[in-house]
């Protein structure tokens, strides 16, 4: 066999080997990348799964946890079976919140499906406290999403000094209503599809 042909054959076999190694490395990288990506997606999906409350609750927050947090702020809370009612009076102003349990077939899940938060007798000096009060409840379902929290805060700030409105944010319906007969502002939030 001529030398040139021999060298050509050797180089060809060596080139094929190199190409196989390169393909193998690329395949391994793709495998890892696809694995990491799919893991992140599946993990996030699993974390947000709300099957444990019938898919109709504020994710990951037990009603007792929220009640305890409010009590820690000095709010007085009472269990009314269908909902927990918490309130705080400062002077003539009343901050009231009803946290409704998610109904099950014959009972209730210990998670929140609806919130009614109201401020009775608000005035110009209670605007900042009122906004923070409403915002805390409104952002409970989106507490890990800063952009949505900011968006909701902007909507509330606009509506709390106006006549009120309804909006939908990521499967949640928000309605802010000003009631002249009770001199109150009320926020109702519930799950909507």
């Amino acid at each position, binding site marked *: 066999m001529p030398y040139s042909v021999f060298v050509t054959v050797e180089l060809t076999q060596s080139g094929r080997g190199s190409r196989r190694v390169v393909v193998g490395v690329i395949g391994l990288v793709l*495998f890892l990348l696809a*694995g990491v990506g799919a893991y992140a997606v599946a993990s996030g*999906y699993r974390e947000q799964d709300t099957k444990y409350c019938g898919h109709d609750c504020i994710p990951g927050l037990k009603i007792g946890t929220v009640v305890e947090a409010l009590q820690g702020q000095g709010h007085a809370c009472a269990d009314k079976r269908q909902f927990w009612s918490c309130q705080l009076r400062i002077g003539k102003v009343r901050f009231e919140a009803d946290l409704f349990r998610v109904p099950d077939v014959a009972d209730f899940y210990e998670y929140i499906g609806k919130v009614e938060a109201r401020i009775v007798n608000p005035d110009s000096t209670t605007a900042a406290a009122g906004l923070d009060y409403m915002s805390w409840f409104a952002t409970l379902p989106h507490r890990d999403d800063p952009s949505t929290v900011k968006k909701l805060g902007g909507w509330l700030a606009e509506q709390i000094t106006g006549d009120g409105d309804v909006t939908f944010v990521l499967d949640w319906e928000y309605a802010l209503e000003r009631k002249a007969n009770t001199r109150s502002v009320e926020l109702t939030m519930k799950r909507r599809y």
Partner: protein
Amino acid sequence: MAAPPGWPYSPDGRFWWDGTAWHPVQAPPPGPPAQPGLTVPPPPGFDAGHPSVSSPWPRTPPPQRAEPYAAGQQTPPPAYGPPGPPGLNPPRRRGTAVFALVTAGTLIAALALGGIAGAAVGLATTEPVTDDRAPSFPGRFPSGKQRYLPKVTVNMVAVNWLQAANAWRCAKSAAPDPVTGATMGMICRPGDAARLHMSVYIWYDEPDKVLSVKARCDLGVGSKACTSLFGMMADTLLSPDRTLRERAEGWAKKNAGKEAMTSLGGIRLQTALHPHSMEAVPAI
């Protein structure tokens, strides 16, 4: 026109070479068409030294001579390269195609397997968050600590100001206040005839947890007694802060005859005309 036996055909078998020009083949040439790499070699004497050949086989024939060839294709005749060693080119191309297919398949399989494996691990190892902590409260979120008038005690109002300095008489009330939610109350009135026209209500949970203080005066809007009562009340409530007590007293006297509101030192003072009164509650 069919090629005479022995003359070469183009690799696609559609033309034959007479030594000077390409001619289209009119009828299928006998035998299988020439294949790439198996092109019929040039006839004997058909080399660079042949006097009638302008370019060596199988280089592109001269343009004017190539017209018949080009006429059938609308494009210039292909520049057939020199035929390689018989049987070498087809296997190499076939090998490259197989390699490309295997590579693509491997990469697609890697993506699919990686995705499936990652998703399976993600679903199997992650549990839904079912008992998260409550988020922190914003800075102005109303707190139970804001329910009481800062640094104000029942003694400060009832004993030091009203009873000791002005000989007023105070009585406790066990009824809770429906407005502030205070569990206990105290009403103080002057010891003389003015008791029918002046009063101070103190609502509290504990002696040092006062929710509201309200003075009422029915001796006429703008009367000296009412203005003095409101001024002294503001001075008493802000007495722990020397700089604010004077401002508070001045504001109360100035606004005793109209409806107004202000916040000083965590206390909101509000005057009203019907009934003529001034009330102090915590500022939010």
